[in-house]
């Protein structure tokens, strides 16, 4: 949970890289961009390996974020996706590349899954001009127009009606795109959730609302913040379809979300899906998570869907050498992103003007 930590200005006191040093662009990353159902590997195992790679990439990027945060290179608030990777990876795998995704402040993982280059994410976190928002946004506010990642949003529930609007536009234009809207179970108590669902239901919009229920809204367990245990009961009042399951198997996540996506694409109908998951870290970097026991955490870690995916690959005959190669490849990509972020320049204050209005405004 956000608790103020002494801000570190280490990153700012570092000398900026010399102007002459070449600045690689995020686009040159080696990351495979998101693959659509038509373009992805054919065999089941190869596909699972691809999903495993995505999950591992997210986990490793998040671990590097934690390290950079401790070193003061990332400031403010940092919410990690560790433990929840199967949700974002599985759900986004059910999409076509041109579909839309919109999410909360816990957004690095979903941005990566949607194809955003690790470089752009890391650089944004480091507050560098090469970041996805030119270093002006930071952790909670990832954005990537190219990959139709419509952003991470720091105001809980604020993006849910926006998502309905995006889906409305798809329906209006008949472009056949689907919108995935992610949020935590904490958001279910705020008006934006209900207003977004109400509109999507009334106008039959092509959208899938995905509640990532990681059991805690900051320090408050679900049992103390909602009168019912099943989030999807909220769908009943709006008369929309619903689904509910544990994110233990990334392939299952993909398949169940694919059903909802199909309903959205083919019938233009919304669905509310609750996916039970668990975050292995605190709410944010400054949360010691004292509200849960170590035993509970250890129990959950045993069920880590990422490890399950790896075990399944091994059991299915995916060669250990290939797994190792894949893992090394991820390490290379992560190291490249960190290096890129470290070496990129900081933004200039003049950016504030051009990013606030489309024309000049200051006087």
């Amino acid at each position: 949970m956000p608790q103020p930590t002494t801000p570190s200005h280490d990153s700012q006191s570092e000398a900026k890289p010399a102007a002459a040093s070449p600045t690689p662009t995020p686009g040159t990353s080696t990351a495979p961009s998101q693959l659509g159902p038509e373009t992805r590997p054919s065999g089941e195992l190869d596909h699972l390996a691809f999903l495993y790679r995505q999950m591992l990439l997210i986990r490793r990027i998040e671990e590097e974020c934690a390290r950079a945060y401790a070193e003061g290179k990332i400031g403010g608030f940092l919410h990690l996706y560790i433990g929840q990777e199967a949700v974002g990876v599985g759900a986004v795998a059910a999409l076509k590349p041109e579909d839309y995704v919109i999410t909360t402040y816990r957004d690095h993982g979903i941005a990566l899954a949607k194809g955003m280059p690790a470089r752009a994410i890391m650089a944004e976190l480091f507050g560098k001009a090469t970041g996805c928002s030119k270093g002006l946004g930071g952790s909670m506010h990832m954005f990537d127009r190219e990959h139709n990642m419509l952003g991470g949003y720091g105001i809980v529930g604020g993006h849910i009606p926006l998502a309905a609007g995006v889906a409305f536009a798809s329906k209006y234009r008949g472009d056949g795109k689907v919108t995935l809207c992610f949020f935590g179970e904490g958001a279910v108590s705020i008006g934006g959730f209900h207003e977004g669902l109400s509109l999507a239901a009334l106008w039959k919009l092509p959208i899938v609302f995905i509640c990532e229920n990681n059991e805690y809204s900051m320090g408050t367990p679900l049992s103390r913040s909602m009168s019912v245990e099943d989030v999807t009961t909220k769908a009943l009042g709006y008369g929309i379809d619903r689904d509910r399951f544990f994110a233990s198997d990334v392939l299952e996540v993909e398949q169940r979300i694919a059903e909802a996506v199909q309903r959205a694409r083919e019938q233009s109908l919304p669905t509310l899906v609750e996916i039970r998951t668990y975050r292995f870290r605190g709410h944010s970097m400054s949360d010691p998570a004292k509200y849960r026991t170590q035993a509970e955490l250890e129990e959950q870690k045993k069920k880590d869907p990422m490890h399950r995916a790896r075990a399944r690959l091994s059991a299915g005959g995916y060669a250990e050498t290939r797994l190792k190669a894949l893992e090394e490849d991820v390490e290379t990509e992560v190291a490249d992103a960190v290096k890129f972020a470290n070496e990129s320049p900081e933004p200039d204050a003049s950016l504030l003007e051009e990013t606030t209005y489309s024309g000049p405004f200051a006087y």
Partner: protein
Amino acid sequence: MRLKRGVLRRRGLVPMAHMIRLESVSEAGTGAMTMPQMNMVQAITDGLRHAMKRDERVVILGEDVGKVGGVFRVTQGLYEEFGDERVIDTPLSEGGIMGCAIGMALHGLVPIPEIQFADFIYPAYDQIVSELAKLRYRSGGEYSAKVVIRTPIGGGIRGGLYHSQSPESLFIHVAGLKVVCPSNPADAKGLLLAAIRDPDPVLFFEPKRIYRAARGEVPEGEITMELGKAAVAREGAHVTVIAWGAMLYEAFAAADEASKKGVECEVIDLRTLWPVDIDTIVASVKKTGRVVVVHEAPKTCGFGAELVALINEKAFLHLEAPPVRVTGFDSPFPYTLENDYLPLAHRILPAVLRTAQF
């Protein structure tokens, strides 16, 4: 009030906590013998505890205010002391929290809702503007909704666009609301208790940048301070600098540097933003003829605009130079460029010198 502080920070090179060693002795403090040292967080907790002990009608509600003790730990220990009926953990529901608080107040309770960050207050803004601010008026003065809304404001922790804003003018603009922003622990406790005593709704803005950095003596028990009184925090003959909250210390830093160049600043800590203590401001401007207003919020329609207008109305013929505002930019609050955006001493100083030389 006296404040000691460290050297003027070079831009962004010294972490905030090292920059200010703020030992303040506010007006509230004078009189008592030995007083405990506290930071802002502890002083506010102390004020809340005192108010709850004194008056059973006082209840606290908000997200994670109970068991967890609040994200900034301001309500720590109160849940254990007063129980879950008086320190109420709510779902994530700012509109609900605020609406409920207003209803509680109508029924004679004294609710103190906490909004985790002022940036999250907008789902409750409708309740505050449409209902809370208007209850006294629409009931012909029969009802007053005595609600004290506590919420942290301001930048300095690299929180970016949703964890850094200073929305005071959005509330000052709404008739019927009072707005407070203390700069030191003793004032924080004193003004909180004054807000709780006050019959009108009060927005109590806590400058998060100095939550733990500002330390000072805080009187035990009751403190009798009044809302609506500014403090002349430093006397000087040449330029009046008006600031509040965390930026007060930046004003001091700039004043120290200006003094080395022969320019003496009179620094006013506004403490209550609305109703504003215009008499103290006018008295100072009549003396100096020059004024610089400092605030974190964007310039356009920020509270500085109102202050300058009031100064023009009430002390125009005493002015020797155009009043100047040193403020945040007219942009969302940036993640990286925080030290450019904030009106820190390095931006206040040139404005002070230019105004002095005008």
